């Protein structure tokens, strides 16, 4: 087990749908060292997003444990858990969820604003956000609103937002699902490139076999269990 990576042990999660109980995850184990990346595929409803939410501490497992960088985030009280997630986890969703009323730069900075005690970090965060936007190719669009960007550009801005707090865990849920082929390829390149330089753990959930094919480690989630493809 890696000291600073991600470790999931025996994750079990089920949901109540009406009177029916649906077991989504039936004991998932996963271990990723810093710098490693994993692509997860699987049929719709197989629990890929649920697994990502548990890994990202957005939801709690019914059973099992999650350790990120050696820490059990669910042992933290709610306010500290929020701060933990803010500092340690980055998300890229299928929908970009850029806020239309903010500029591109402001959107990227949003994760840095979650806690008021930013102090001197404010300027440093902004400088880093500008650099990230440069690296995703949006250095010239800082003051633009999301409505003025293409779909691919929006998703690239979302990637920059996910990385603005330098997370040790980057979780991407269908990051290219809403994009055309070219944009999807560009976003995939970007994710891989940025991850390679960051040394963090990255998990990408996708239906796209093309995207999954670009990862060294791949796993398939089916019937509530994660099976790694070697």
């Amino acid at each position, binding site marked *: 087990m890696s000291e600073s990576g991600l470790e999931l042990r025996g994750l079990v999660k089920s949901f109540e749908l009406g009177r029916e109980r649906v077991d989504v995850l039936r004991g998932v184990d996963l271990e990723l060292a810093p710098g490693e990346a994993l692509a997860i595929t699987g049929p*719709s*409803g197989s629990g890929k*997003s649920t697994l990502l*939410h548990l890994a*990202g501490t*957005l*939801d709690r497992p019914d059973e099992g444990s999650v350790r990120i960088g050696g820490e059990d985030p669910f042992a933290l009280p*709610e*306010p500290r858990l*929020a*701060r*933990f*997630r*803010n*500092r340690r*986890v980055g*998300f890229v*969703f*299928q*929908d970009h*969820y850029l*806020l*239309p*009323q*903010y*500029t591109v*730069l*402001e959107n990227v*900075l*949003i*994760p840095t*604003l*979650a*806690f*008021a005690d930013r102090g001197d970090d*404010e300027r440093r965060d*902004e400088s880093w956000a500008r650099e990230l936007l440069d690296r995703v190719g949006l250095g010239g669009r*800082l*003051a*633009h*609103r999301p*409505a*003025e960007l293409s779909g691919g550009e929006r998703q690239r801005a979302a990637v920059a*937002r996910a990385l603005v*707090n330098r997370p040790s865990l980057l979780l991407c*849920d*269908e990051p290219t*699902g809403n994009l055309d082929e070219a944009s999807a390829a560009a976003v995939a390149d970007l994710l891989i490139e940025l991850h390679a330089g960051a040394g963090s753990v990255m998990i990408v*959930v996708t239906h796209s076999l093309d995207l999954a094919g670009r990862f060294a480690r791949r796993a398939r989630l089916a019937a509530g269990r994660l099976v790694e493809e070697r």
Partner: protein
Amino acid sequence: MRRSLLYYWRTHLAVAVGAAVATAVLTGALIVGDSVRGSLRDLTLDRLGEIDVALVGERPFRQGLGADLEAELGGELDLAPTLLLSGSAVHGASRARASRVTILGAGPELARLYPEAPELPVGRQPGLLFPSVVLNEALAGELGAAPGDEVLLSFEIPSDVPRETLVGREEAGATVGTLRLSVGGVIPDRGLGGLRLTPGQARPMNAFVERERLQRAVFGRGADPRVNLLLLAFPGDLGATPGSAELADTLGSVMAPADLGLEITTGAERVVVESDRFVLDPAASRAVLEAARASRATAQEVLTYFATALRSGDRSIPYSTISALDPPAAPALGAFRLVDGSPAPRLAEDELLLNRWAAEDLGARPGDEIEVEYYELGARDELFTRSVTLRLAGVVEIEGLAADPRLTPEFPGLEDAQDISSWDPPFPVDLDAIRGVDEEYWDAYRSLPKAYVAASLGRRLWKSRFGDLTSIRLAPGEGSAAELAGRLRAELPRRLSVEEAGLAFRQLKRDGLEAARGATDFSGLFLGLSFFLIASAVLLVGLLFRLGIERRAREVGLLRAVGYRARTVRRSLLAEGGVLAALGALAGLGGAVFYAWLMLAGLRTWWLPAVGTPVLFLHVGPATPVIGWVASVLVVLATIWWTLRRLGRVSAARLLAGAAGLDEIAAGRRRRPLLVAVAFSLLAAALLAAAFATGETSSPGFAFGIGACLLIAGVAGFAHLCGGPPGARANGLRGAPLVSMGARNTGRNRGRSVLSVALVASACFLIVAVDAFRGGGEAEVTDRASGAGGFTLVAETDVPVVAGLDRPETLRELGFSDDEAARLAEIDLVPFRLLPGEDVSCLNLFRPERPRVLGVTPEMRARGGFSFQQVAEKSPDPWSLLAGELEPGVLPAFGDFNSVLWILHSGLGQEISLENERGETVRLRFVGLLAKGIFQSEVLISEENFLAHFPSRTGYSWFLADPPLNRVEETAAMLESRLERFGFDATPTAERLSAFKAVENTYIATFQTLGGFGLLLGTLGLGIVLLRNVLERRGELAMLRAFGYRRSTLARMVVAENAILLLAGVGIGAVAGLAAAAPHLSAGGETVPWLSLGLTLLVVVAVGMLASTLAVAGTLRTPLLGALKAE
């Protein structure tokens, strides 16, 4: 559609509830109008019983006239001859006093006009010390009187001879009669107890006395029974009641000359026509002369006056009568010869004739100068001694005309005297000046004139507004004197109109029901007062419907994608909305009745000052629910149509993507709001400058113009700034991120945000502006330019005061001590003549048809004061505009601005009509409208015009006085005590102004309460907008949660966003409202009621914040995670 309605039942239920609220308020306001009209109608019918018409006499008339009229009309009517007097009542034990009491000398017929009224126990009743008086509850309550208690009634004694003539004047206090009575019973204010001849919702204070007893007290024992009111009830419905003109014709045919106050005396050769009023009024003179011409009779006009002295050299004859006449043109009128046997010459205006006795007594010869000294009566009963020196043109023999005692009418106080020393004339006589020869003349000739002047000179010197002849002597041209007298008796009633005879028919029921339609349209008023409530409900409907449609964006997109035209889809949704509107409105009709009931309960309790008396009860007109339902459905449908209008502009693709109303946000598109904001700010500044430049700082037009401009500018400014400052600034979130983010989030859906702010701002604007206009009622009454004109007391009497209260002798007669008279001399006590009528202020719910009119004396006009809202001509002395006539029959008039505008529905330069005493229509044209003050109940004309058109209205009944503020109570008490017999009732002007202001403030409070409800509904709408925003942004909020934002942080951010909208709305509205009121406040020296205003706005903000916090907390508690799932 049925399936859609059922599937989306929750959303639809909300829309239907919104429609129901709008219907309830809109229809409820209409029902309030119905209820006011219905209640006033009920009140009118209840108070009049079966009475349809009244014959009202300026002077008392023969009681039997009613029976004659009944016989002529066919005997199918009920009538009640009544003697009605205004007066006051004092409780014998407690001395509690009530002014403005109606004293009714009633016969048993009166109670029979009220089907359910019992016989009145008036007259001698067993167990009672004094004869009985029956009080209604209102009067009994005011006096604290119970059956068996002793009550003293004071009232004016009507006089046949006008009080404002030399022969009609009385001692100052002698015009008042009193009756001491025991309370025989107290009857309810309903029905007979509530009998009131003029429309008005206030409960009258009625005292019913046995008619014969009151007649004895007024006219003396043995006098012919006379009344001044004949109440008539006709069989059948109101439509069958004869009109006033028809009744007047019938009355004319049964009237005798005596009913006109005319006395026709027939001699052997001539006929003499005189009046029981001493002078023949101009109409009677005209009628007699016309009748004489028609009969080819020769007329001689005579005016006999009283000379206090005739002097020639050092000789003088005291107290003589003197006749103004021209020599008779017919021998039958009597010989008028000089002592030498020649006919007396026609006199020039500087000549006179003496009779032989006088000439001999004075030792005067033709050509000598004779000084005639006489009294002239001033406007306030002052006696001025005047004299004229004339040349003796001849001496007439005491024979023929010069020996006719009828040249002098019955002279009050002289006629019955055995000798001069027992004279009791209504003017001072120095009995020491009477000589023995004067007594001898009296014994021989009584009041036979000793001197004669030209008719034209007599008119010039001694005529009054009551007439210029004391008799007309007629010689028949053909036939005998008796035949001529017969013709005159038949013709005179036909030649004089009923009004000229001082009588008038009043269609009490018909006019009362007309007046019950109300001075103010309460439907419109409450629609206005409820405007924001209705607007809020309708906007809420639009908002809810729009949100419902947005939820169904994909469904709409799909229909469009499969080929449905946008118009077809819109129609289908409109039909759905129509069903919801119809059902909601139907449900709202029940709420409307409740809303109206609640408003009426408010008007009977919390808002009672607005109507004065709790007389309003629920009435629902048959058509009102239908009108209300249709209007509400149309309004709601229009709103839904407006909501759907934008749907056609959204592409099917975007709809399929779920976006029905999402405004994509791009930078740099906000130029137009900025231009609008700047333009309207400039316009507001220009209006403000114009308001100060024209001096129209209190003009509501300017005020609301300025306010509305600032409101639009403010909302446009918000639209410009909404979502944060536009431009290329990359990171505007430095500093306080939550507030910044909240502020920026307002731009998330700018249309909704601007609409919400506009709604809140408009409501706040009206609430603040109206509240600032309210004022505290503590205006400086001592300021001449104030609404009190510098006067600190206003008073009214039940019995007019003829004598001037500025004269020491009058005050002594009235019982003022020297000290009191001295104190009174220090203040200005300004009298006004009063024509009783209907209150034209907002205190009267009925539509006034005959307004109260004040006659303003020249002294008051010279004094000036008060402030004018509008005047026909700019003048440093606006009161001078009242003088003269504008055109024949058109009199200049002043009125209170609001009373004229809202109650009389007239305005500056416009006219109202009034019937004068002669039955002629007089037009009062408003040449000045006074700013809010104490003249809200009356219309003002000059005293000269008043007397010209209402000559028989003698004395002054309305007063203003200016004692210093620290002596107001003391002065009021002194005047009320000394003038108790006149029913003098004084009120501090500040109190009167407060009473008027209370009405205004109550309406403002009503408006604010309903506006406040509307605002609350608006904040509810704001909350819904907020909820919708949150629901639409669940994904974004979930994303923020994913990035570590805590739930409470998100809640604070969303609440901050709502607070910004709320505070922006309240701020813009408050600033615009205060700016609107600023000119008024600065001009009137009034202060803003900061406390109540602040509290109102605080409550609005607090409720808005509470609602939004609860809404947000509820929404954010639901899991957001699902929104993030890709599948």
